[in-house]
Structures are given as structure tokens and as C-alpha cells.
């Protein structure tokens, strides 16, 4: 099939105009691949583009992203366009096996046939094939039975394609198309139910993503980003930060670095327009947002006594020695907010301290047109600027929260330890196994009962 296509293509080469069309199609496919951020999962840190091999930490175990280069032996080189579309929108591989929803096919299902066509053209012609097979994913029983996803998809997967809402503007529709589809925002920002399906009624109200928390991005002024203007949101998506409000880290920093910063102005505006129309039905009636917490004040440090002097001000001293250099003695950051202030900062102002803990543990890495943004980690990494233990990070976090952030929030060393491990584990595996065990037990009991009956 591929060979025929290549033949057709080479014939068309003679026709220059047709060539130009193909170039445009591939460019469109490339743009969509960037918007869909395929590279975030399918490219390892020092690996070839789309060659896979990256282990994605999920609450149920590690899922290895596959090689999606057009390699015939190790990638998708033999895929027809239909097979490509099915993988993308139905979560079905060419060999018929189901993909785990770590691949956000539930979102990509939104993609139109046209866009899938462009993506296919891009992946098949413009990506360099890499003949390296990736490792297999091994999730614990019963999740290793991919066939179970057949039922999961039946319950939770929608039909492919996008139907515009005629009552809304073109930009709004484009925004929704992107948000629900390529940029798959809800796969992180929407909380999930017991079977790990997104809960549509709570769309974009925030969810835990490993050690990080993808916050509420509805248009609600208290719980979400309602106080942001259209320009604010566009700026954030382009640069990864909004002075005096928020900055992207973790997976969002990756998304900004690899995807959002390259989207067109129009698309970013469309996304912003759509997001600003999403309400939050469960938001509190009043209160201040996570961007308004804290103020410049009161950091303490001893002068005249060494750092090891034991005292009640461990939090202040940890702050002074580890953080104050970049974030300022008043936690005010630098004048241009390149190093953000720690007050009026969603990471410290949120009700969920996950992002504060994860930032300290894992640091921040973003690369945008502004340049390299780098905060070193303070965990156990070899590159950690200082190795802080769970107790120290809890102490430091609490001090920051009480002085500059949401003073109602407290962090325990156990929370920090959990964050270090990659966040809370899901009980899905346990329940599934328990359920199966219970079922097996029931079956065993039945067999024994029947057998005994027959003996009588």
C-alpha cells in the first residue's frame, strides 16, 4: 500500500502544483502533530523524534510509548491511513490490540478525517524512520489484558469527528475543536472516576497528574482562571508564565515547550475564547482565587547565627539558604518576574499543594522563545542543587504556604514522600484484582457446592 502511494507521489512530482499541495498537506500535518504534542510521549529526552521508548508514569503503572516513525519493522511504516486513523481515534493498533488511554485517543477522536489525513501524510513522508523496537508495556493483572479496553471504550469513547456548534463563533468552534481534540486539555485537567474515565460534568475542574496537579481551568473567577483576560491566557500558552499569577511546570511546561508556543496566534486566541466560556458548576460562590493569595512580607532568617543552629525557624532558614537567592528575600522574585514571586502565585495559592511540593522536588524546565527557564530540583536527583529530605520539604512548603500562599493548607512529610514516588497510586488495580479474587473465590465456592451436591 505504501509502495503504491510512493509511486503515486513520485508521479505527481512531475506535476509541480501537486507537489506544492503535498508540501502544504505535510506542513499541515506537522502543525497538527505539534498541536497534538505527539512528541511529548513518543520522543525520549535524547532520542530520535517519535521513536518512542519513553516510560509514562500512570497511576496503574508504567506505560511505554511506542515507535511511531514510519519504520516498517519497528514503527507504523506498514499502516494504512485507516489503521492510522483507528489508532488515533479509536485506540486500536494495526494488529487489533487496544491501546491504553495514556494515549489520549479519547481526545484525538475529535480530529476530523481531513486532519487525520494530513497527520498521516506528515508521519509517513516527513518523519525519519527509526528501526528500533521499543519495550513492551507490562501492567499488573488484570490491566495487562488489553481486551478489557474493548468494554471501557464501549462505555467511554465517543464517535470520531467534530460537529461544530452553529450558535457559536468560528473561533469558539476552532477553540473547542483544538481543546477537545489535538491539545487534549481535558485528559489532564478533568478529574477521573473509578474506572479512570473523565467525568464530563466536572470538565476542566482540575485533576492529579502523578506528582503534579493540573488545576481548574474553567472560566470561574474563584475556582478557575476567570480573572485572566483573553490576552493573559494567550501569553501563558505562548511563554509558559504569567507574571504575578502562574507558571507552567511538569507536563504543562513540556506542553508549552513542545506544543503551545508554536501554535498560531489565531489558534491560541481560539483556545482562549473557548476556555473562557466553560463554567464550573461546583465552584464556591465567593472567595479569592489561587492567584491572589499571600503578599510580600515577613520572611525570617537569623543573622549572626550559623545555619545549623537548631531553632523554630527552620522553614525560614531553609527558604533563605535554598530559595531566597532567586525568589528574593521578600519572595518577590526578580523585577521582571523572570523568577516569579511566590505570592500571587497559583503554585502556592492553590488548595492542593501538589504543585508546590513537586516544584521543589523536581524543579522547572521550560524552553520558549524567551529562552531557557530552569529551576533546579531539590530531591534526590544527581543534579539536585541541594538534597532536601521529606521533612525539610514539608517544613519549607508549610512556611511558604503560611507566609506567601494559601495559609489554610498544610503539607506533611508523607505527602512529600508520595510525591517523590510519582504521586498517589490508583486503587483501580487493587480493586480489579480484589474483584477478580472475589469472583474466583465465589466460583470456587460454587464449584465445591455443586461437587458436593453431586456426591450426595
Amino acid at each position, binding site marked *: 500500500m505504501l509502495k503504491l502511494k510512493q509511486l503515486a507521489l513520485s508521479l505527481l512530482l512531475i506535476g509541480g502544483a501537486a507537489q506544492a499541495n503535498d508540501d502544504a498537506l505535510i506542513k499541515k500535518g506537522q502543525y497538527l502533530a505539534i498541536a497534538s504534542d505527539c512528541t511529548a510521549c513518543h520522543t525520549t529526552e535524547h532520542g530520535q523524534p517519535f521513536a518512542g521508548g519513553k516510560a509514562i508514569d500512570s497511576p496503574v503503572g508504567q506505560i511505554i510509548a511506542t515507535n511511531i516513525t514510519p519504520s516498517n519493522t519497528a514503527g507504523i511504516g506498514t499502516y494504512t491511513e485507516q489503521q492510522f486513523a483507528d489508532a488515533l481515534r479509536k485506540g486500536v493498533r494495526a494488529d487489533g490490540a487496544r491501546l491504553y488511554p495514556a494515549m489520549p485517543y479519547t481526545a484525538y477522536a475529535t480530529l476530523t478525517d481531513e486532519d487525520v489525513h494530513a497527520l498521516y501524510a506528515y508521519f509517513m513522508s516527513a518523519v525519519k524512520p527509526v528501526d528500533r523496537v521499543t519495550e513492551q508495556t507490562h501492567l499488573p493483572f488484570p490491566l495487562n489484558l488489553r481486551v478489557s479496553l474493548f468494554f471501557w471504550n464501549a462505555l467511554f469513547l465517543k464517535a470520531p469527528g467534530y460537529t461544530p456548534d452553529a450558535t457559536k463563533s468560528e473561533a469558539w468552534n476552532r477553540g473547542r475543536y483544538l481543546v477537545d481534540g489535538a491539545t487534549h486539555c481535558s485528559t489532564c485537567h478533568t478529574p477521573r472516576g473509578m474506572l479512570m474515565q473523565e467525568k464530563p460534568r466536572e470538565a476542566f475542574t482540575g485533576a492529579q497528574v502523578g506528582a503534579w496537579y493540573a488545576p481548574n481551568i474553567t472560566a470561574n473567577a474563584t475556582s478557575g482562571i476567570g480573572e485572566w483576560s483573553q490576552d493573559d491566557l494567550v501569553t501563558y500558552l505562548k511563554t509558559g508564565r504569567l507574571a504575578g499569577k502562574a507558571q507552567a511546570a511538569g507536563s504543562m511546561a513540556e506542553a508549552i515547550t513542545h506544543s503551545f508556543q508554536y501554535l498560531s496566534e489565531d489558534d491560541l486566541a481560539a483556545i482562549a475564547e473557548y476556555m473562557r466560556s466553560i463554567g464550573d458548576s461546583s465552584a464556591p460562590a465567593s472567595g479569592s482565587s489561587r492567584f491572589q493569595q499571600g503578599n510580600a*512580607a515577613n520572611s525570617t532568617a537569623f*543573622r*549572626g*547565627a550559623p545555619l*545549623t543552629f537548631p531553632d*523554630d525557624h527552620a522553614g525560614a532558614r531553609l527558604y533563605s539558604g535554598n530559595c531566597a537567592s532567586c525568589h528574593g*528575600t521578600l519572595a518577590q522574585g526578580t523585577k521582571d518576574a523572570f523568577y516569579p514571586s511566590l505570592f500571587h502565585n497559583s503554585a502556592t495559592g492553590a488548595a492542593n499543594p501538589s504543585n508546590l511540593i513537586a516544584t521543589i522536588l523536581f524543579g522547572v524546565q521550560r524552553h520558549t522563545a524567551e529562552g531557557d527557564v530552569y529551576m533546579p530540583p531539590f530531591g534526590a536527583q544527581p543534579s539536585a542543587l541541594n538534597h532536601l529530605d521529606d521533612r525539610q520539604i514539608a517544613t519549607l512548603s508549610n512556611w511558604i504556604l503560611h507566609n506567601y500562599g494559601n495559609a489554610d493548607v498544610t503539607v506533611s512529610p508523607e505527602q512529600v514522600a508520595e510525591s517523590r514516588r510519582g504521586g498517589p497510586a490508583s486503587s483501580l488495580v487493587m480493586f480489579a484484582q480484589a474483584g477478580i479474587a472475589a469472583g474466583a473465590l465465589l466460583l470456587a465456592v460454587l464449584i465445591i457446592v455443586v461437587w458436593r451436591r453431586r456426591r450426595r
Partner: protein
Amino acid sequence: MHYSRRRALKLLGLVTLTSATGQFLALPPLKAAQSPASPAALADFMQISRLLTQLDELNTTLAQALLMTLEQTHPGFASALTQLKNRLQNQPALLQQDRLTFSSADAESEKIAQAILGGWYNGVVGKGKGARYVTYVNTLAAQVVSDKLVPPSFSYGPIGSWAHQP
């Protein structure tokens, strides 16, 4: 690890609890050790400080710390302070010049004036072994150049930011 570092500073039991901003949060050990400065003494100290520095806005919590430390390091400070206040009130001409030129009879007052200024400008009170370190960041020496410089060990800004005049 006990290092007898910072010989110039008396440490343990020292109470100069200062915020990196110079803001106090609390001074529990100091309160336990001795009574805090009386409001009258603080008011006098603030007034004198304003006269000497010719600044109307002075950090009150830093003032409190300085006053307490001065009381600890200079015996008879309270009376010396009153004396200085009287001197400055009686001879307002003293403050009109660039330098404080006390007569030799007022050597005590001069020393106190210098100690107070040293505290505000350098963040250090006292000399030699008896010196106490009150603040590093919130000194007037740092404030006077804060439009151009940041105290060392604090970031100025991203690369290139220091190449441009603010």
C-alpha cells in the same frame, strides 16, 4: 557542629532575629530574656534616627531590633540616648552640616550617634567581639543604591538584564 565562627558576633542566646527583609516576626527569646524596649525609648530612638539619617521613613521593626541590640551592647544606652536627644534638640545647627561635629565634652553623644548610624547603614551594632549583626539585606547602604545594585547572593535578573542601565 559548633564552629566558633564569627568571633565578632555573640551567637547563642543572641536574639537578633531578623527577617531577611528586616521585618520581625517574633522575638521570643528576647522577650524571655528581657523586657522589650519601652514605647517611649523607641519613639526617642526613631526620632533621633530620623534626624541623623534625614529619612522620614525608617523600618520600625528594624528600629526595634537595633534599639534592643544597642541597649545590650552599650551599657547605659538609655541615658546616653536621652543625652544625645537633648544635644540635638538644643543645638539644631549640629544637623545642618554634613558632619556631626560634637565638642569634646560630648564625646559620648558622638559615639552613640555613630553607633546608631552604623546600625542603620551597615546592619551591625557594636565593634569587635561584641558586635552584633542585625540585618544584611535591609541596610541603608543597600537601600541607597537599590536602584542599581542588589545585595550580593541575591539574583539580579536573567542574563543580559545587568547589561542595561535600569
